[in-house]
């Protein structure tokens, strides 16, 4: 809903009463909260869940749209969500509420930046096995709301497997507890699952409790340069069929890599880099290093590198730069495919074989997740639309689906964002029950607006 200037002024006054005038973002700084080329009408930073809930009540009373904001790293992910409402920024709610090291749990405010959390946990020799690539800026709440994950999901899975409890400010303006702090908990409906990946459509996550793991005794990453994609995929299949349980199996194309990684591994433009990380007991890591090198040799590797210590850390830091920025000088699309494990080669190969565009690939190959960056020459944005369509077809043939994540707004408008499913109707009913006014990121309702 668009606000008239007069009611907007009144709303700003009310917001200032709730969060304090200094926590209402002034008009000239609102562009920091823009996305899809639009500024929101207002942005506020509540101090705690009570204030967040009060903003929700105000929005409910006035019929104003609410967009929840964490670190802002996912605001430009499709579908386009117009900025015709209030941005509810959780950045101030960034405290560590309880670190219970003996029970391997931590409870933090939603605004806590992921890397900050990991630094705190590391002091207790613990970590949260959730490593989204934008962790330097992304927050706990944003990571959960967007169900973000990273390379180590191969072993540790995703947010749904780590969140024990949450607190959520609802569209009704209540603050509710979901779950708790025990690993096993079947008391009541498992509401956590609905809020994870809900993209701010059902309310604002204000705090979360996670299960943690002790930092492994040893770790090593085997980086393997393969002349072709098929060899890298065959190697991943062999690893999955073995007794090894590595934490990552990422395949990256030359074009996806930052320059520093290309040169460290002397990767040729036609080659692919496979990164397999092994964590655990010293003996188990040593064994996996040997076995991975053997498997790599058998699968046609050109060169095998083994990294540990600071080199390994630096490698994974650089890995986070992959697809961190979209090309600015020409139209480009970031697309995410999710396919059957045995079909990763078919889909990834199809992506790299697209004609008339340039492509780059970064895959969590052991999970069937393939990210593709597709770029066209200036003025040929139409080719992105065709590429999205082709890849969606291909993903369906591979048992899965493909979601365009980022694209110029004009081209995005011509793409099918949501893959066909028969459960969107029920999702819309849940949205309608939990947000009857349809005020919370309405454009992100699963399946699109009915």
């Amino acid at each position: 809903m668009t606000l008239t200037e007069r009611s907007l002024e009144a709303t700003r006054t009310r917001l200032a009463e709730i969060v304090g005038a200094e926590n209402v973002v002034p008009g000239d700084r609102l562009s920091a909260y823009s996305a899809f080329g639009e500024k929101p009408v207002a942005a506020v930073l509540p101090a705690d869940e009570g204030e967040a809930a009060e903003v929700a009540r105000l929005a409910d009373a006035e019929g104003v749209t609410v967009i929840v904001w964490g670190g802002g790293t996912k605001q430009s992910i499709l579908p386009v969500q117009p900025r015709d409402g209030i941005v509810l920024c959780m950045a101030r709610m960034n405290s560590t509420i309880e670190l219970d090291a003996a029970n391997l749990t931590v409870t933090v405010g939603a605004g806590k930046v992921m890397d900050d959390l990991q630094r705190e946990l590391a002091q207790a020799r613990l970590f949260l096995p959730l490593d989204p690539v934008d962790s330097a800026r992304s927050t706990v709440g944003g990571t959960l709301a967007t169900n973000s994950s990273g390379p180590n999901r191969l072993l540790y899975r995703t947010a749904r497997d780590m969140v024990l409890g949450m607190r959520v400010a609802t569209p009704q303006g209540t603050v509710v507890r979901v779950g708790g702090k025990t690993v096993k908990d079947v008391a009541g409906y498992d509401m956590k699952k609905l809020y994870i990946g809900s993209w701010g459509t059902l309310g604002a996550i204000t705090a979360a409790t996670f299960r943690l793991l002790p930092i492994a005794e040893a770790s090593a990453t085997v980086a393997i340069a393969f002349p072709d994609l098929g060899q890298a995929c065959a190697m991943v299949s062999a690893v999955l069929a073995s007794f090894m349980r590595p934490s990552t199996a990422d395949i990256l194309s030359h074009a996806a890599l930052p320059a520093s990684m290309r040169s460290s591994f002397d990767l040729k433009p036609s080659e692919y880099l496979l990164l397999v990380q092994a964590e655990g007991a010293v003996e188990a890591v040593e064994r996996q290093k040997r076995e991975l090198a053997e498997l790599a040799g058998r699968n046609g590797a050109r060169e095998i590198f083994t990294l540990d210590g600071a080199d390994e850390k630096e490698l994974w830091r650089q890995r986070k730069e992959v697809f961190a920025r979209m090309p600015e000088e020409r139209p480009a699309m970031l697309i995410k495919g999710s396919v059957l494990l045995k079909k990763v080669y078919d889909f990834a190969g199809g992506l790299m074989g697209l004609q008339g565009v340039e492509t780059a690939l970064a895959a969590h190959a052991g999970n069937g997740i393939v990210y593709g960056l597709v770029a066209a020459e200036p003025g040929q944005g139409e080719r992105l639309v065709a590429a999205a369509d082709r890849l969606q077809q291909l993903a369906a043939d591979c048992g899965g689906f493909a979601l365009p994540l980022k694209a110029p707004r004009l081209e995005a408008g011509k793409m099918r964002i949501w893959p066909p499913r028969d459960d969107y109707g029920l999702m819309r009913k849940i949205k309608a029950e939990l947000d009857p006014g349809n005020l919370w990121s309405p454009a992100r309702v699963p399946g699109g607006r009915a």
Partner: protein
Amino acid sequence: MTREQLIEELARIVGKEDVLHSRRDLLVYEYDSTPDLFQPDVVVFPANAAEASAVMKLAAREGLTVVPRGAGTNLSGGTLALKGGIVMGCSRMTRVLEVDPGNERVVVEPGVVNLDLQNMLAPLGYLYAPDPASQKVSTLGGNIGENSGGPHCLKYGVTTNHVYGLEVVLHDGEVIHTGGPCEDNPGYDLTGAIVGSEGTFGFVTSMTLRLMRVPESIKTMLAIFDSLEDSGNAVSDIIADGIVPATLEIMDRIVTWAVEESYHSGYPLDAEGILIIELDGLKDGQDRQAERIVEICKKNHVRDIKIAQSDAERAALWAGRKGAFGAVARVSPMYSVQDGTVPRTRLAETMMKVVAIAERHNVKVGTVAHAGDGNLHPLIMYNPKDAEEVKRVHEAGKEILKLCVEMGGTLTGEHGIGIEKQDSMPLVFSDDDVAVMRRVKRAFDPSNRLNPDKILPREKAAEGVGV
């Protein structure tokens, strides 16, 4: 519609022999593993999603309640037909539809028994991780309904962590597919919402489950303690040392005694606390980890600790633990089983307080616990003919639940709320918390006909009465 007409209509959908309606047949479906009895009007066994959908449409048209049912091992009353109506069983849907180790997936119908799936997968070198103690009889459909756990959940998680997708018949007969064979499906995680919803959201007709490679090496250890507190401290110390075993189970003296009577697993009768510890994974480094565990147990005054030397020895150790409920039932035909969960570090303290509660109420209680998860099962034994004792058991049970919540835990780790604990929900959840759950229930079941009046507190309890 008369009962006769309903039976006739159902017979037209599923076939005459798969509709049960005689008083004698219904007796078998009026109970689960809780003491209350509720007889359904009719029990029906669809063969597939189309038949289940037709039954659901008929129920919707006639305003009848539908209660999904697996093998009936439910421990919280979740499968009882409170309002009569239709019980929909899954015992005709027993096919394994697709075994696909390469994609680490299996597609099964809900009537497949958990252990039957395990036995089918083992020769292929794969397993399905959730292994509830009831796995010999409980169905995978029932496991989905309850979000079942089991001893191996410490490392690998519970049922919900191993389900990729579901085919579900909704309240109006619509058939939908949640999740899918691939990961990160777009939209809300309906699969996650349905798992553990105790049959109140729909009837599951097929499920895509996650397969894992069997571990290369398993090491099972038995540690015997003269004090419950020492055994509990050993559990905390093992985890604090950075070791994540596949399982960490604890049994107290009374359960040990009952188990030994039945299984002769070689547990000493005078032990106050027995731990079963299992490591799995690559064999490399495992011996050293086992030695470290021995050291930690010794530091906590272990009396004796041994490592199973063969598969047969391992099986013997487990037979006792998995048969614990049955063994207690041999000693005391009726017992009330609790399922509270507490933060792991408070488990020993909680178990000792449970003993004190039992003494105060003059009831006999033995406890077995998934110690690594802080999930404890006090079994309160009683004679159902002794009304006064039944009352004391009830009081003790409520006090144990309250204790678990006070310890920072919750009401149930894996058995569900059902009807048994619905009035205790306000111990953990506020009216606002419950209101959100009610909204979700309404989205799935607007006319409240799917396993109605379960899980969420009855309205009077929500106002604070009856807790």
